[in-house]
């Protein structure tokens, strides 16, 4: 796109994106909700893109960082800890209600730490093994989340944590409808703007990292680690940085998710989800931010679109095919089909800028 065309394009897109939820919400909140969830996935996919796409590290346990962020917020902004741990209740007599400007950086930071810790043992492993080990870590985290309700009830086990606060910005709670200039914005729309804002930041961050000394170094590691080392690159630190920075996006997304849903449980952080996010990145176009966004949107919006088609199918097949099964089926077929047909993804980076 020529530079002259860029500005009008961006302005138009900005307006379209700003107006989108207002248009959709008149058709029902469900549609806005779909976009909200899709935006969260986009955030996850962008984060994983740093690890897999930029640095070439196949992380199959990425969902662990999502879980870290989500549970962090759940613990810091819900009655769970104060109800279960008397020591905490004593320290916070008004309950735990961490504000957004504390909890988002905290979520990012904790996730980054987790990223470095989980990445460290994998540094010298080759691709397939790295995948399995990260998968193992993801599972380990899930098992811990599922079982840390005894002897001390930290995560409330499979029951999950509920009554999580909604985030509030400048005194406006995102959990309540907000009226401004005659418009009433429901919570789904309020969350939309927050999510969109963070996605935009994530896109800018990704693009800036990619087009920098670090981005080039990551790509070098991905292309040929030995040659990279021979040129003086500290591949160990570069990989840890990829894990850490990539994880921050996941952590932030987790915080947003917990607040949006009001409830978290280990079920939301299964291997299936990790695989979904990997699929979004690979099928979209490994390393290419625009492709990744496309992949995330397609795979995230798909089940919801299917929900409308699934009705008749479900009746036809005696209840065997419902929307979530269809989604799984299509994701699986997509993973196989796209790799066979376009191994570089639907929208790969243009040549020379890989």
């Amino acid at each position, binding site marked *: 796109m020529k530079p002259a065309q860029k500005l009008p394009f961006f302005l138009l897109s900005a307006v379209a994106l700003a107006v989108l939820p207002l248009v959709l919400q008149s058709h029902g909140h469900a549609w806005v909700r779909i976009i909200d969830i899709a935006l969260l996935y986009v955030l996850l996919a962008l984060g994983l893109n740093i690890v897999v796409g930029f640095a*070439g590290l196949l992380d199959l346990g990425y969902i662990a960082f999502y879980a870290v962020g989500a549970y962090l917020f759940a613990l810091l902004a819900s009655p769970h800890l104060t109800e279960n741990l008397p020591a905490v209740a004593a320290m916070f007599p008004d309950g735990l209600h961490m504000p957004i400007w504390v909890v988002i950086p905290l979520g990012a930071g904790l996730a980054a730490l987790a990223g470095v810790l989980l990445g460290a043992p994998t540094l*010298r*492993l*080759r*691709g397939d*093994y790295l995948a399995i080990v990260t998968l193992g870590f993801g599972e380990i985290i899930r098992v811990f989340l599922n079982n840390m309700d005894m002897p001390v009830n930290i995560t409330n086990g499979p029951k999950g944590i509920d009554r999580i606060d909604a985030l509030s910005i400048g005194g406006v709670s995102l959990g309540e409808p907000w009226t401004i200039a005659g418009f009433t914005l429901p919570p789904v729309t309020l969350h939309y703007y927050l999510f969109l804002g963070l996605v935009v930041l994530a896109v800018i*961050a990704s693009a*800036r*990292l990619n087009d*920098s*000394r*670090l*981005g*080039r*170094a990551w*790509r*070098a*590691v*991905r*292309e*040929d*680690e*030995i*040659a*990279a*080392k*021979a*040129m*003086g*690159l*500290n*591949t160990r630190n570069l990989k840890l*940085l990829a894990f850490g*920075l990539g994880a921050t996006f996941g952590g932030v997304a987790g915080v947003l998710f917990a607040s949006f849903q009001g409830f978290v449980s280990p079920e939301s952080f299964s291997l299936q989800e990790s695989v979904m996010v990997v699929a979004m990145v690979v099928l979209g176009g490994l390393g290419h931010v625009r492709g990744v966004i496309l992949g995330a949107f397609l795979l995230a919006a798909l089940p919801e679109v299917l929900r409308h088609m699934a009705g008749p199918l479900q009746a036809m097949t005696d209840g065997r095919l419902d929307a979530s099964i269809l989604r799984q089926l299509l994701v699986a077929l997509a993973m196989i089909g796209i790799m066979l047909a376009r191994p570089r993804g639907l929208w790969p980076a243009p*040549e*020379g*800028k*890989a």
Partner: protein
Amino acid sequence: MSTARPLLKVNHVSKRFGGVHALENVGLSIQAGDVHGLIGPNGAGKTTFFNVITGLVPADRGHFELEGRAYKPTAVHQVARAGIARTFQNIRLFGDMSVLDNVRVGRHVRTQVGWWQALLRTSAFAREEAAIVRDAMALLDFVGLADQAHRTARTLSYGDQRRIEIARALATEPRLLALDEPAAGMNATEKVALRELIERIRAQGRTVLIIEHDVKLVMGLCDQVTVLDQGQLIAQGRPEQVQSDSRVIDAYLGSAHAAYEAPHEQPADDDDAEIEDDDEDEGARAPEGGRS
């Protein structure tokens, strides 16, 4: 021969792979500004020697000194940082990256703007990025590839890819440029261009260590030559001395003397196999990043 402190001084280097003595008590000394040739028949241990001094393969024994300071070649990236840059026998470019980007990666080790500055797009970032592009383009110009800067590296011809690799190595501002069979697979014209490039590199005052099979190329180019055979040092000195050394003649004629006469078609010492061999002990360790 000058008695100034050598740029690179290496001795007592030994390396065994299982039962094979790849290197036995090998040593050499390179004066700053020299072009030093490392020759020998197939399997002599030349690439192993390269791998050892650059840290890719650990030596069993050896003493290593760069510019008078001892160094332990354990971490490849640290050796590069200290000032030894190399090219590989089987060209190892970042194939899917552009020509320019390949050389820009070479600048990584001599630049330092951090990622947070990249995120914030500070003026320090902008300045350094501009400098990196300038330096990289200058190097591409030096090797004659400035007009190819934005092409994907793997789409270039073999000879051009070799030059990108050399430009990339030069980008690290090495004290010693180590070229592993740079002329392998090149035709006569390309070899002439390569020789001319190496002469220009020498004219800049750089020190070069070069493994080569093409004896004509080596003899015409090098100030000093080291000859290895089956892991042992058999001769060392000026090209004319070495050429007429009976042990050298024996070594070449005794084994595949096609290596001595014909232009070398197939790279003999397979450094990738060596790296992979070593990794057999290490199992899951990644032999090479994205390549397979």
